């Protein structure tokens, strides 16, 4: 397609879809690249979302995203289930290439590529990925029925995964390098009350042991440095996320952790006509509702930019 679009949205979590809803309602005729395997974003791998306002009894993450997607479509957003693999954002006309080799040009771009799972960074973690090491409790919990497994992390996602995994596992040990959880109190309390969950505080995973599959973890106490081994058949890694900014490194100002830097309270990046929202910019909150809010702001900022 050779015509120049008003706005291209890259990414499709709550931020991307909300930007699409607002941009479509502003009659900017947006096109949104949802991602070929990441469409819907991080919430696609969650179960019940209890804190998204408006859903009295909670809502399943994938259902919430499906609703947002349909809402964007209803107002005329063009949804493309493909990835953007290259971007040139420097000129007045932005040029983006998708995974099928098509080029799309636009006057403005909204980046909503979200974040990816953070890895511990161990050689054996990678080697045994798919053989006991997992990043997705909802996908893989089923395979650990009746087993003793470890979850690493101390935030909401670690606690949610640990709680979810007790449906299958005999025992879930939550390994956290500090002595208290960062997770919200309601989730932490729920985990602490769960008889299948054991907490290992002040502990970090320093190696994953096993020839063909996970057999044990090598652990280190973060207070006194003592090392130990403990048998586990599974390791779920939930130590946070890293912003998916690899395609824009060198083009857009990022902070030292890779998050896009926006001007003040806006979604404007250092490049004219390029806006960023959602987990890609958010160090702090990383909630579905804050991502949706910033996606809305990005669409409004883009609309204002296009009007000038």
């Amino acid at each position: 397609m050779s015509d120049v679009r008003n706005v291209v949205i890259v990414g499709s979590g709550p931020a991307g879809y909300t930007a699409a809803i607002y941009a479509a309602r502003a009659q900017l005729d947006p096109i949104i690249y949802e991602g070929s395997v990441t469409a819907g974003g991080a919430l696609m791998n969650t179960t019940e979302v209890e804190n998204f306002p408006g859903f009295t009894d909670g809502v399943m993450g994938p259902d919430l995203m499906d609703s947002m997607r349909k809402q964007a479509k209803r107002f005329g957003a063009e949804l493309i289930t493909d990835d953007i693999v290259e971007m040139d954002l420097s000129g007045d006309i932005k040029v983006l290439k998708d995974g099928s080799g098509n080029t799309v040009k636009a006057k403005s771009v909204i980046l909503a590529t979200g974040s990816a799972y953070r890895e511990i960074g161990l050689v054996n973690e990678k080697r045994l990925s798919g053989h006991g090491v997992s990043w997705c409790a909802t996908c893989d919990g089923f395979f650990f029925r009746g087993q003793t497994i470890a979850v690493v992390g101390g935030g909401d996602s670690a606690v949610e995964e640990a709680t979810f995994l007790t449906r299958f596992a005999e025992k879930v040990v939550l390994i956290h390098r500090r002595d208290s959880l960062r997770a919200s109190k309601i989730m932490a309390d729920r985990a602490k009350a769960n008889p299948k969950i054991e907490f290992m505080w002040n502990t970090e995973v320093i190696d994953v042991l096993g020839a063909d599959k996970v057999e044990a973890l090598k652990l280190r106490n973060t207070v006194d440095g003592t090392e130990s081994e403990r048998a586990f058949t599974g390791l779920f890694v939930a130590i946070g996320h890293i912003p998916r900014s690899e395609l824009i490194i060198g083009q857009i100002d990022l902070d030292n952790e890779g998050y896009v830097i926006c001007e003040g309270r806006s979604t404007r990046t250092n490049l004219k006509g390029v806006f960023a929202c959602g987990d890609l910019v958010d160090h702090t909150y990383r909630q579905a509702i804050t991502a949706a809010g910033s996606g809305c702001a990005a669409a409004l900022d883009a609309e204002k930019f296009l009007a000038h």
Partner: protein
Amino acid sequence: MATSKVTTATFDAEVLKSSTPVLVDFWAEWCGPCRAVGPILEEISDEYGSKIKIVKLNTDEESAIAIKYGITSIPSMYVFVNGEVVTQIVGAKPKPALLKDLASFLA
């Protein structure tokens, strides 16, 4: 050629004794990334069906096979040649990345 379903009963004939390489997609209904990669595998099967046979094994219904091959993450896509696993792909990937992983079978 569309992908086909494989079961414990047909695994031997369809996969282990196949004369062409076979990609077995270990998947389940409740797995989001499995559903995301499903249509991509259909496309690859349509385009390269003469080079590689793509079959889907539902790990809920056919857990014995999943356990036998030590599957602990889905989607897992294992390529079998002459009854042996020669390539293991774990996790949903975009089509270009899958084609790269499968390049030696598609040439």
